[in-house]
Structures are given as C-alpha cells and as structure tokens.
C-alpha cells in the first residue's frame, strides 16, 4: 500500500532564493506597516506620558498605552506569522509551476515538444500552463504536418516521370529532381530531430 505523501516545510521552498527573496521583502514591508500603525496609534499616549506635566494625564496615558499596546502587539505578531505562512504557500504555488515551465522550456529549446505541464490542484498560473500545453500540441501538429508533407513530396517526386524528348532538358530536369529529393530527404532528417506528441 502506498504511503500518503506528507509535505515537509523544506519542500515548500522549491526555488529557495526566489521564495526567500519574496518572503523577506514582504516581511520587511509588513514590519514597516506595523511600525507606522503602532506609531500612529501609540504616539499620542507616548507623548502624554513623556511630556505632560500633569501626573493625572500621565497616569491615564500610561493606562491607555498599556491597554492598547498589550492588545496591539500580540495581534500584530499573530498577523506577522499569518502573513509569513501565507507568503510561503503563495510563493510555493507560483514557484511549483515556474519550475515546471522552466523544464518544459529547456526541453522545447532542445526540440522536444513532448513535455506537457501538469499542475497540482491549487497551483497558480493555470491559464499560462494551458497556453504552453496548447503551444506544444500546435507545434507537434505543425511538425507532423510538415513531415507528412515532406514524405508526400518525396513520393510525388519518385513517381513523377514526365516524357521529355530533349536530352539536355531531360538532364536538367533529372538534376533538379535529384536536388529536390535530397532537399526533401534533408528536411525529413531535420524534422526527425524533433520529438513530438502523438497525434
């Protein structure tokens, strides 16, 4: 019986440098947001605590500060953890398809149009993968069509025997036909380098 696949945390980092870069940048921006939020909310209380000359106002400001900061800081820390987790998942769902695309493009560059892209259920970039898969199918069809046409040309050339009386013209024609056969044969050889999807 096959064991169920358990995803480990390290498996969420498919493209480590790219994902860590995204994570670091978003965390830094979130820290900035946290600082601005806390600054705007807490500044009036901090100002009263430090600069007011009235002890009663200082005491009230201190009470408000402890009360607000005591709730704000844990909630922002929880948010920070949630944002981090969300970023790991989102970047994982983007990087998974990107790695897939990368391998398919490499194979396409080598003339192999057989590597289709299959994404997981919750991966992003599905429309893009459909376009790439359609391109692979279309390219395969084009290459198969050209190969088939080339074979047809070879057959037609082989069976084409017109009656030419003039020996010079006949010689020229045979030379032309021979060149044509060679070109068709070369084209067929070149086309056979491509790997295509079965129609």
């Amino acid at each position, binding site marked *: 019986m096959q064991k169920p696949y358990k995803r480990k945390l390290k498996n969420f980092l498919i493209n480590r440098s790219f994902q860590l870069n995204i994570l670091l940048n978003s965390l830094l921006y979130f820290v*900035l947001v946290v600082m601005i939020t806390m600054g705007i909310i807490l500044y009036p209380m901090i100002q009263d*605590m430090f600069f007011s000359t009235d002890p009663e106002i200082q005491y009230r400001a201190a009470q408000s500060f*402890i009360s607000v900061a005591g709730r704000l800081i844990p909630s922002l820390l929880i948010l920070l953890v949630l944002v981090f987790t969300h970023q790991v998942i989102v970047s994982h769902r983007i990087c998974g398809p990107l790695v897939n695309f990368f391998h398919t493009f490499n194979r396409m560059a080598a003339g192999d149009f057989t590597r289709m892209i299959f994404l997981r259920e919750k991966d992003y970039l599905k429309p893009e993968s459909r376009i790439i898969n359609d391109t692979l199918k279309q390219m395969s069809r084009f290459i198969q069509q050209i190969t088939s046409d080339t074979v047809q040309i070879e057959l037609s050339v082989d069976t084409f025997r017109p009656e030419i009386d003039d020996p010079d013209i006949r010689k020229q024609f045979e030379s032309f036909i021979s060149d044509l056969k060679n070109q068709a044969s070369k084209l067929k050889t070149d086309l056979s380098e491509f790997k295509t999807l079965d129609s």
Partner: protein
Amino acid sequence: MIIGILAVIAIGTLSNAFEKAYKIYAKQDLKNFISYEEANYQTDYKFINFTETIQNNGDSSEHTYGFTLSRGVIISAEGNPDDPYNSDTPFTVTSTHNKIPIKYAYNFVTGEWTETEK
C-alpha cells in the same frame, strides 16, 4: 537596511515607553496609597497596619485593604503605623512594578520622595 534601523529605533522607543508607563503606574499608585493612608490618619489617627506586601498580580484588582492597585505594582511599608510621624520610627512606603528595575519610596516624616535601584 533602512527598515532594520527603523525597527530597532521603534523597538527601543516602545521598550522605553513601556518602562515609563510602569514607572508612572508605580509612582501614581504610591501617591494614591499615601493619600489613602493620610485619609485614614484623619479619621483614626493612625495608618492602616499591614505587614505583608500588597500587590496586584492580575488575578484580582481589589485588595483586602480596600485599596486598588494597578496590575504589576507592588507596595510595601516600614515603620510604626500607630505613630507614623515619629521621627524615630518614620513610616515609609515603597512602590515598584515587577517589570522595572527601580523603586520609589516616600517618607511620611520628611515628606521626601526617593528613587533607588531595586
């Protein structure tokens, strides 16, 4: 880099603000306690006698002496509550917060406030 520097400054400011708030708590509670004792003296000619330290750990905001402390503040007293203004046995109350390194003291005889390290 800039965000890192800003974060360090923000954490420092926040830490200072917390410390300041706890100091204000300790000081204000001590002031309230002084007024409370003085009010008792006006009616009974003596201070409330307590030998234990009173504090609010957060589980209750009401103390048995009927005096409400801020959360985390600890108040203790020394001297003779029946004769608090006697210069030989001056009644002194001390206040601190469990998150600050200093304590405030008030001497009823001299009326002096002092701030010392814990």
